[in-house]
């Protein structure tokens, strides 16, 4: 479903973020991207969200080169590819409910569905009763769960998660990891960039290891191997 084909990314001043990276991700797959800071994990996720563009090579989604999307097609693509980030990226002036509802509003979903889906998603992430809180009134773990609920209501085909547990303590880390697995079970392919050794080893899912912008290993049921 998602194909990286000999993708390279160079920044000015000869900084190479990715070098000839190729891999395929199947529908509903759970893939972890592992590597030190600067190994290229974030660049890959940014390319999936089409925030960054390859210097050479192509990224295909369902057989279409995503760099060919026109201005008007981009929002439609982004609704199929959800994202969660280390810094949560919630709208600070909106309540929990509104933050989750916003993704559906932007997608033009009818009010009736929003009223049904948002409470459901908040229940899945365990935030029922906190709908009217603003992000600054929540703990880090709760904020990330709001972001997960926002991704859930999008019913995405891909979820790009960039260090979602990077700012969380171990207990919340497991909650979020659990939610990622739940979303994955609902049929969404999850691409998780992390350097949390414990998470990787517990997941027992496919692991792509990156070093200096190159793939050094790609294993089903992989383990964390960077020392």
């Amino acid at each position, binding site marked *: 479903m998602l194909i990286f084909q000999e993708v390279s990314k160079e920044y000015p001043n000869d900084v190479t973020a990715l070098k000839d990276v190729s891999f395929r991700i199947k529908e509903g797959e759970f893939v972890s991207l592992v590597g030190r800071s600067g190994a290229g994990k974030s660049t890959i996720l940014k390319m999936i*969200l089409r*925030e960054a563009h390859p210097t050479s090579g192509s990224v295909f989604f369902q057989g279409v080169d995503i760099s060919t999307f026109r*201005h*008007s097609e981009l*929002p*439609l*693509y*982004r*609704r199929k590819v*959800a*994202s969660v980030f280390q810094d949560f*990226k*919630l*709208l*600070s*002036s*909106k309540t929990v409910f509104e933050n989750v509802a*916003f*993704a559906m*509003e*932007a*997608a*033009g979903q*009818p*009010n009736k569905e929003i009223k049904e889906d948002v409470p459901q998603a908040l229940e899945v992430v365990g935030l029922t009763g906190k709908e009217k809180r603003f992000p600054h009134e929540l703990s880090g773990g709760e904020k990330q769960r709001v972001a997960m609920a*926002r991704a859930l209501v*999008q019913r995405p085909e891909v979820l790009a998660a960039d260090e979602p547990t990077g700012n969380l303590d171990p207990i919340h880390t497991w909650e979020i990891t659990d939610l990622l697995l739940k979303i994955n079970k609902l049929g969404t392919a999850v691409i998780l960039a992390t350097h949390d050794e414990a998470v990787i080893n517990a997941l027992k899912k496919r692991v792509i290891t990156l070093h200096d912008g190159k793939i050094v290993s790609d294993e089903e049921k992989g383990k964390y191997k960077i020392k």
Partner: protein
Amino acid sequence: MTNITRILKNSWKNFSRNLWLSIATMFMMFVALAVVGSLILFDESLSAFVSGLQEKVDVSIYFTQEAEEEDILTVKDTLEERGDVKSVAYISKDDALEIFTERHEKNEILLESLDELESNPLQASINIKVHQPEQFAGLVEFLENSTAAEYIETINFQENERVINTITSISASVNRAGLLFTIILTSLVILVTYNTIRLAIYTAREEIYIMKLVGASNWFARTPFVITGGLYGLISALLVLAFFFGGAYFMDSQVSLVFADIDFWGYLAQNNVYFSLIIIGTGVFIGTSSSWLAAKRYLKV
């Protein structure tokens, strides 16, 4: 339709949930629009002042004693047909005498000596006003070269010429300075408002970025900010109007005592629609276009 309600709702939330930012932005716009309003009133009072002066300037042609009334009236008719002449008033010898007697009614010696004379010693004259002071010179030249020249004794243009020239050059330079002043202040107003709104939208850049990431179209992400910007402009404009109409109403009597030609309240009352439309239009236009431009750079995600 759902989208439009959602956009309107988001616009209102932008406005009400960032109340302090909204108030600060509107305060800056209030100052900017007050400058625009003051410029209009300044221009208006300046031209009222200058045209008041121009109104007072005229040229009189005095005719010789031999001139027949008929000849004088022919000159008057010729003058009235000219495009540069605003008004022509004929003062006959008898009229002149009447004015003279009236003006000096307390000076008995003068009036008695006037009675001693058998005929009326005063001259018939024509008083001319033109649209623009600089038109006098051409008019005088025309009269001096016309067939009527033989009946004309004096044209008091030479005496008035200095005054006329001074007023002409003052009003020209005042207009030029006024235009320059307007251009500079208007650019300043636009710049200040644009930067204030840019600051307001800068705080929302993360929000725009997130909207784009969850699949909002540019239109859906940007329009609420444009509407909020328009709302800032509208509210500031209404406050400025209240300030000006209220201010002019209460201050008018004092100002009129000093400058008889300047009547702010009269001007505002007469041009209320024009004035309001300019202020509201400027406010809404600057508010929406600044927001549109400022949001643009954050949409490139």
